[in-house]
């Protein structure tokens, strides 16, 4: 039996509330709510969605929700799933943005945020280290990494343009190899 749109909204809203941390957190959440509790998907389907989402532009959690929402109730399901998933985040950020904008001149808050920004350096360093190990593994990947690094550092070219250049180079390299 197909779930109602309201039920889809409710499920994704609950998942959205718990989606803290990286995009992959969506996997265990969908598994629990959609597969184990409601039996709406199979685990193979979910794994497929995750694999394809990793290769798509956009946010992984979002792409997986579009796939699974579509599976439940076609386009309507996909739209409702996305709305449900994002609404909690949207409301919480609005609330916090208001609080931050009100208190940002306070000395204690200022120093709190000073420390917080340093913690972001730690988080980004660790994240970079992890993906570095995974994807910088060929001459080509090193070449692209250095090219974009120096282009971005010294030429102040927009990231969009750099990504487009990378797409063209990678595509041509692929054509050349075939």
């Amino acid at each position, binding site marked *: 039996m197909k779930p109602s749109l309201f039920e889809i909204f409710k499920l994704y809203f609950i998942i*959205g*509330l718990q*989606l*803290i*941390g*990286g*995009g992959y957190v969506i996997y265990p959440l969908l598994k629990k709510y959609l597969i184990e509790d409601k039996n709406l998907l199979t685990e193979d389907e979910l794994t497929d969605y995750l694999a*394809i989402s990793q290769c*798509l*532009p*956009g*946010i*992984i959690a*979002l*792409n997986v929700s*579009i796939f699974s929402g*579509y599976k439940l109730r076609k386009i309507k399901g*996909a739209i409702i799933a*996305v709305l449900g998933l*994002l609404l909690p*985040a*949207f409301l*919480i*950020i*609005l609330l*916090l*943005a208001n609080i931050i*904008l009100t208190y940002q001149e306070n000395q204690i808050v200022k*120093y*709190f*945020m*000073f*420390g*917080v*920004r*340093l*913690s*972001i*350096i*730690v988080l980004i360093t660790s*994240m*970079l280290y992890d*993906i570095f190990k995974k*994807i910088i593994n*060929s001459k080509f*990947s090193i070449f*692209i*990494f250095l090219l*974009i690094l120096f282009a*971005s550092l010294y030429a102040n070219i*927009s*990231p969009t343009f750099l*990504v487009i250049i*990378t797409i063209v*180079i*990678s*595509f041509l*390299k*692929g054509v050349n190899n*075939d």
Partner: protein
Amino acid sequence: MINITTLLFLEFLKIGIFAIGGGYATIPFLFHLIDKYHWFWPKDLTNMIALSNMTPGPVGINMATYVGFTTGGLKGSLMATLGIITGPFIITLFVIFFINKYKQSQALKNILEGVKPAACALISVVLIQLVRDNLFIDAKFNPNAVIILVVLFFIFKYTKKFPSLIILAGGILGIISYIFQN
């Protein structure tokens, strides 16, 4: 002359399409927005990254909501958030219709092989900028920042799975450094 909400929508539409590889990939694009429009400061952006890490929701989307709100109010936050999801939404639906062809596409694999290191490079540049902005005050080395950073790296070794904990620890150390200074 386009108004700010339309501009927000268009800029975040672009980010949604080109920031490939998770929420952190959006950060270089957001830094570029600073150069282009001066809607906010690098400091605001870093605060935003912290906030997004501690609250539910994908980091990229949270940042769109926050940037949109601080630049264009409620309407701005709606348009920026819509902007960042529109591209992926259309692309994902497109893929659903052509799923089998897509799975085997060698051309796409080649492209990703290049785009991932590029995203990595762009984020590295952000990291360099963050270090420069936060470890130096008016081109002078800030010893407090270095001490806090070292302590945080140490704490991080044990709290890897919980990014919010390390952010909280950072905030507390920041307040401690304030108490010591006065």
